[in-house]
């Protein structure tokens, strides 16, 4: 075991923070900025549909002006795209407007649960990786899809814990465990983390990072909640790196059956 926390490495870039923040649903740009600051995040995702992509510094679509790109790696996302073609179109426009080649690929055509479309996501990932994007795809917790996206050259995989905004925590545990076991790229648990304990749980399981948005954005005090998530992510990661004691149902037997082997 190392005594220093290991850094998160995504596409040849190191991050001290393993908490990635979303920027939707906040009451104002200022409140969002203070929450990002408090979270210690070094990577933040922004919906391109909220941003000005016209290059005209539109003051009525100014979400990007609240994100200091010297401090944060900007991860534009394709939320709103319903298929690979729309996602690719949006990604290219976003690259022009933001100069970021990093991309959170999101294709969720169903507006209720916002569940990702596996077929279209893989298709888009294959195209966008070839075009030089660093692609971080949002996916259902599907281990085979995760491998396919890795093969396609994605920088991470981002399986969901439960539907976006649901605050239901990690309902896909068994599948995420398989994804983590088999992954050669960082695994980021994204969506559904409603409490710091959910984030800690993901980190204890061995996830490389988590992405949080709704739970912070709609909290009564977003900045403090961001701090709480930061602490939970650090605690969960430390526990994972140190190695948790296996869970046992009963206490150790006081009279071991094989004790006689040690007697002489």
């Amino acid at each position: 075991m190392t005594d220093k926390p290991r850094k998160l490495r995504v596409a040849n870039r190191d991050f001290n923070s393993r908490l990635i923040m979303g920027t939707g649903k906040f009451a104002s740009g200022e409140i969002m900025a203070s929450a990002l600051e408090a979270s210690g995040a070094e990577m933040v995702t922004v919906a391109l549909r909220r941003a000005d992509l016209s290059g005209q510094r539109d003051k009525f679509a100014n979400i990007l002006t609240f994100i200091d790109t010297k401090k944060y790696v900007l991860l534009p996302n394709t939320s709103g795209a319903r298929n690979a073609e729309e996602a690719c179109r949006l990604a290219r426009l976003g690259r022009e407007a933001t100069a970021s080649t990093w991309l959170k690929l999101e294709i969720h055509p169903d507006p209720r649960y916002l569940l990702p479309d596996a077929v279209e996501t893989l298709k888009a990932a294959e195209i966008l990786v070839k075009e030089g994007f660093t692609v971080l795809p949002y996916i259902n917790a599907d281990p085979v899809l995760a491998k396919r996206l890795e093969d396609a050259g994605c920088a991470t995989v981002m399986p969901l814990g439960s539907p976006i905004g649901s605050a239901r925590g990690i309902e896909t545990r068994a599948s995420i465990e398989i994804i983590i076991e088999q992954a050669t790229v960082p695994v980021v648990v994204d969506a559904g983390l409603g409490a710091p304990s959910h984030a800690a749980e993901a980190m204890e399981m061995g996830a490389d990072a988590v992405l949080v948005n709704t739970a912070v954005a709609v909290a009564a005090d977003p900045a403090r909640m961001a701090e709480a998530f930061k602490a939970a992510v650090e605690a969960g990661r430390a526990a994972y790196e140190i190695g948790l004691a296996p869970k046992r149902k009963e206490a150790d037997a006081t009279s071991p059956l094989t004790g006689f082997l040690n007697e002489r």
Partner: protein
Amino acid sequence: MSFASELNSLALAELSHFAQNATAADVEAALARSEASGKRISAADFAALISPAAAQPQYIEAMAQRSHDLTLRHFGRVIRFFAPLYVSNECINVCKYCGFSRDNPILRVTLTADQVAAEARYLRDQGFRHILLVAGEHPHFISDDYLRDCVARLHGDWPSISLEIGPLETAQYVPIVQAGAEGLVVYQETYDRGVYDAMHVSGPKKDFGWRLETPERAYAAGFKRLGIGALLGLAPWRNEAIALAAHAGYLLKKCWMAQLTISAPRLRPAAGEFRPLAPMSDRELVQFVCAMRIAFPEVGLVLSTRESAMLRDNLVPLGITMMSAGSHTEPGGYTGQGRETLHVTKGGRMIKPELPVIESEGEHATVQFEIADNRSPAEVAARLEQLGYEPVWKDWEGALNEA
């Protein structure tokens, strides 16, 4: 199967009876079930939530809290802004409640695409990035080609363009979608066939089923956002709410990729002196909004400037997700476009107004209805910020609307 047949098989009489007579225990059970399961609530539970019993202070407060939580979770602390732009008030329908009704001797005009662009520029300067083009129904003055031209003209400057126009065939919608339109709004007005028939005296709008199936045709043509609603005040609102909820539930399954929005416009004074047949109180409107949110956590709820500033401010935390502001409900209302071609229409022909038209700056086409919230968009935005909500002007991207 379309929604028309589903509406026919809906146990409306039973649900309506339950919506009138549900007990406090029914309301409590419905609320408890909606919180416990996280699943879609049943039609009977929805009926309980809109009952007089649920309007009691303790229940309506519980519903409001639940609605608030669900709205925050799904939409966050944001309100999406949009502006209606009336492009024409010509109409061939005779509808008893509408200011644009064919036989009303009002000043009419259809803006040219250039004039539409000029009005839109004004709205853009105010901050709007989502626009709703509104027109009466008149195949001669408001043709498919005309609508397509208007959309094409605005597409480059507007991340989101929706239309509220007379129902068309799927094939007629396709070029409009391809020109860059994202959403289609069509209110059934009333889901009560008898009242519908009495209100819509003549014109193509008389065909209830044709209008009812419009959202499905629009979805088939490629529209991504569908708006439905009922004009509250024509038939008892509880019946409208039950049918509207059934319609929403159907569309969410059938048109599963569409973003759905629901509007509940209450009748406002308009030309023709029509008065609501079945008025709805503020308390009942609040109940309606909360019940819809609890039933459909992911559906956008739209609030127009028909309602007063006070009521609008108070409805924001209760479940509303989209608002207009500073609206005009007459073509040319923002910048006076089309003033020189104002006319009266008789037998489909434009004639010079016989009335002594006052040659003043104030001359304009007749409004569809009076608005109640006269604050400017900037004032409404500032008020939302005070209330702890971010006014979101842009939440879509035109590139997503390209064919």
